[in-house]
């Protein structure tokens, strides 16, 4: 237990009548990229804020890098980095000035800080932007600057709250390369996201839904352990097929992917033949074959409202 970077038990946070985080148990091993996947409002940011000691939990116990939180939060703050969801460096300071400020805030020795800033600016292709005001940087540049700021003091644990929500796919790939580089160097990373492809890259993943931890494991293990089966329906009128399958007992969720309909169904209640038969009875000719579960299926299954998960019928 003491070997893990983060251990939380029964972590709960209430805001008035709303329970934003509800009895979450969490263990994050060191030097891992641990993902938080969840829709907006699922409690990702609130959990991260509690783990960094920015927000006091209403109930539960937290131990981060051996510090009890929130009691020992000040000691923890020297050892962690936190990259906020919104760009939180100063728009009206230059790239260099922002990093120098952070170096001083973390009480880094002057000469060491200067070398470290130079190295980070080079690593994140910001050398030629040193004198530019941070507010005038592009989305990708801001995000790289924010990461440089968050790791300036060499934290052992880095929290990133939806770090790639405002950048293009190319920047996202580069950003993730940087994250793995940090993990290889021994940094533990906790990243929240709502991008499936990013979640897939994590060593381990927790899926949060309405404040509850609904799934936890390595992405591949989560896919393999999916309780539902995936069927791919190939037909000329996927929209009509989707309407036809809506409410069919055993169908949990559907999504149209291009010309194909992806059906998530309870195992044992439906198979390819029964789906095709149901469609044929309604005059829709379709070919149905089994598909491999991906993380999106896991996510959809885990975050289904309970009523829908029970396969309740409703009018199309």
């Amino acid at each position, binding site marked *: 237990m003491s070997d893990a970077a983060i251990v939380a038990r029964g972590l709960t946070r209430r805001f008035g009548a709303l329970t934003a985080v509800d009895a979450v148990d969490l263990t994050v091993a060191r030097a891992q990229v641990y993902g938080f996947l969840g829709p907006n409002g699922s409690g990702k940011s609130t959990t991260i*804020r509690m783990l*960094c*000691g*920015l*927000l*006091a939990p209403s109930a539960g116990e937290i131990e981060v890098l051996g510090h009890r939180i*929130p009691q020992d939060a*000040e000691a923890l*703050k*020297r050892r*962690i980095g*936190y990259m*906020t969801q*919104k*760009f*939180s*460096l*100063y*728009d009206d300071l230059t790239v260099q000035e922002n990093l120098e400020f*952070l170096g001083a*805030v*973390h*009480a880094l020795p002057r000469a060491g800080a200067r070398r470290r800033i130079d190295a980070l600016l080079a690593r994140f292709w910001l050398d030629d932007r040193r004198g530019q005001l941070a507010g005038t940087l592009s989305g990708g540049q801001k995000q790289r600057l924010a990461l440089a*700021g968050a790791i300036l003091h060499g934290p052992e644990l880095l929290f990133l709250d939806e770090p790639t929500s405002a950048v293009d796919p190319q920047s996202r790939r580069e950003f993730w390369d940087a994250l793995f580089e940090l993990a290889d160097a021994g940094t533990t990373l906790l990243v929240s996201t709502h991008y499936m492809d990013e979640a897939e890259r994590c060593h381990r993943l927790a899926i949060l839904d309405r404040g509850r931890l609904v799934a936890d494991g390595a992405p591949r293990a989560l896919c393999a352990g999916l309780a539902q089966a995936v069927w791919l329906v190939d037909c000329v009128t996927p929209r009509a097929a989707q309407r036809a399958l809506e409410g069919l007992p055993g169908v949990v969720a559907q999504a149209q992917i291009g010309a194909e309909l992806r059906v998530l169904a309870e195992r044992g209640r439906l198979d390819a033949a029964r789906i095709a038969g149901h469609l044929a009875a309604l005059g829709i000719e379709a070919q149905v074959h089994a598909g491999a579960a991906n993380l999106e299926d896991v996510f959809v299954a885990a975050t289904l409202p309970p009523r829908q998960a029970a396969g309740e019928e409703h009018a199309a």
Partner: protein
Amino acid sequence: MNLRRLFSIILKELRQLRRDRLTFAMIVGIPTLQLLMFGFAINLDVRHLPAAVLDQAETARSRELVAELSASQVIDVRYPLAAPQEVDALLREGRVSAVLVIPRDFEARLERGDRAALQLVVDGSDQVVQQAARQLAAYPLDRLRGAGTAPKDAGIEIVNFYNPERRAPINTVPGLVGVILTMTMVLFTAMALVREREHGNLEMLIATPVSPWELTLGKVLPFVGIGVLQVTVVLLLGRLIFAVPIRGALLDVYVASLVFILASLALGLFLSTLARSQFQAMQLAFFTFLPQILLSGFMFPFAGMPRPAQWFAEALPLTHFVRLIRGIALRGAGLAELWPELAALAVFSAAMLGLAVSRVHKRLD
């Protein structure tokens, strides 16, 4: 112009306004505050000016005169004096605004009527006091001479200390230092901290080892320098353009200003912990600015206000600073003589700073 669109914008505006509780409170609060202050507190008719009497004649008629003038309620005789030297000290320290000086030959002067029978020495550093003095000097001395005597003039002579030419800038410029500092210091600090929160910088900062004290002091100290610069600008321009003197020690002026700057910054800091947006911070700053400028004695006579308003004004930093700066710059008083005002400012600063820091959490909740 589409009326439906116009109406939808009006409705949206009203809905937003209703949810901004502070603005909503200000809409009601500012007129209420103004009305109460102008209605109850501000009174151009000065009464109960603290005064002293130096009666060197000590005759029945001189005592009768003092009683009569006191009965007018314009002056409130607090100190009977024995020696002329005491007049100076009392005025300089700001303990009295006027001194009635009745000379030894009061009776003779009264009879002859060729020279003023007595003097009213007034503190010219306050314009309002000068006006009140003129009103008092119009008191007809003929009544003392008894019926039947022919009216002779030259009644009460006004001796205007500190501002004998009665030049307005001399009265306003020193106090203006305080008004300007109040406006900028409170507003700047209140906005500065709120801006940090509004832009999300605060969330990043509190995840670092920065302590609330470092954060607070670091944000506030630059404004001390700005405040000192403003004091210098106002006094220098006052000197060069309006020939406003600084009769006391320059060091005293700066020490008093520094303590007042701290008090204003502490107030601004406290406001910043209440406001959620920069706009709200501005509103709150304005809300504290109003009573300060109206009740401090800078604009309207302190002596004219009813007791509760005076007690309230004692809690405002500008009240004490106006007394300090007028005392030092115009009356040549030293901080040693004005220490109660300085102490009041220090207490205010400490209280506000304590309140503010207790509210600057290093957490988000």
